[in-house]
C-alpha cells in the first residue's frame, strides 16, 4: 500500500466497487470452465477450489485496491432435490457490496442419460483502510 493512500477512510467514486464489472468477470470464467461439464464427485472438490481461486485472482487484478475479497462457489448435482442458499452481511453499505452469478448446465450423454450441474458463485468486497 503506498504511503500516499493511507489517509483515505473511504474510496473515491472511481475506485468504488462496481458489481457489474465483477459479475462479468465471474460469468466469463464460469462459462468458460463449466460448459459441457458433468458432476463428478471426484473432480468437483478440485474444480470448485480452482474456480474460486481463479475468480479471486481475476477480481484482484481488476484494480479494486483497498478492498478485501471473499469468493464463495457452490456446485450441486441436480437430481430434483430442493436447495436454497441465502446470505446476510454486517458491513458498511456505502463502501461494501457483492456480485453473484448463477449457472445451470444441462449435459446430454449418449442414451439420453443426463447429469446436471448447478452452480452459484458469489463475490463480496469489503473496504479496508
Amino acid at each position, binding site marked *: 500500500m503506498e504511503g500516499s493512500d493511507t489517509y483515505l477512510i473511504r474510496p473515491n467514486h472511481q475506485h468504488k466497487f462496481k458489481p457489474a464489472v465483477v459479475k462479468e468477470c465471474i460469468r466469463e470464467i464460469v462459462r468458460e470452465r463449466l460448459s459441457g461439464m458433468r*458432476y463428478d*464427485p471426484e473432480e*468437483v*472438490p478440485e474444480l*470448485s*477450489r480452482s*474456480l*474460486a*481461486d481463479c*475468480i*479471486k485472482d481475476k477480481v*484482484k487484478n481488476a484494480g479494486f485496491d483497498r478492498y*478485501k*475479497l*471473499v*469468493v*464463495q*462457489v*457452490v*456446485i*450441486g*448435482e*441436480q*437430481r*430434483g*432435490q*430442493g*436447495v*436454497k*442458499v*441465502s*446470505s*446476510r*452481511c*454486517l*458491513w*458498511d453499505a456505502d463502501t*461494501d457490496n457483492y456480485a453473484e452469478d448463477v449457472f445451470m448446465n444441462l449435459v446430454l450423454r449418449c442414451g439420453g442419460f443426463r447429469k446436471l450441474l448447478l452452480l452459484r458463485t*458469489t463475490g*463480496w468486497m*469489503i473496504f*479496508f483502510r
Partner: protein
Amino acid sequence: MDDYQTEEESIEAVIGGNAYQHSRVNHWTTSVVEQCLSQLSKLGKPFKYIVTCIIMQKNGAGLQTASACFWDNNTDGSCAVRWENKSMYCIASVFGLAI
C-alpha cells in the same frame, strides 16, 4: 474465530426437529442467517461479517462448496458448520473481516 457454537445453536434453534418442506425453506434460511448475524453482532467485536446458509433436501445428490479469500491472515478468518437431520442438510459459513 470460535463462533462454531453460535452458528450451531442458531441452526438448531431454527430448523432442529423439522422435516424438509419446500414452502418453509425460504423462511428457514433467512432466519438462520439473521439469527447468526445478530448473535455475532452482540459479541461487540470490531468485525464485518458475511454469513451464508445453504439448505438442501436429502436426495442422494452431491453438493460442494469452496471459497477463496483475499484478506489479512492475522486478523480475518472464517468458520463453516455442517448440520443435518433425516431429511435435509444445512451448511452455514461465517466470514469475519477486521475493520
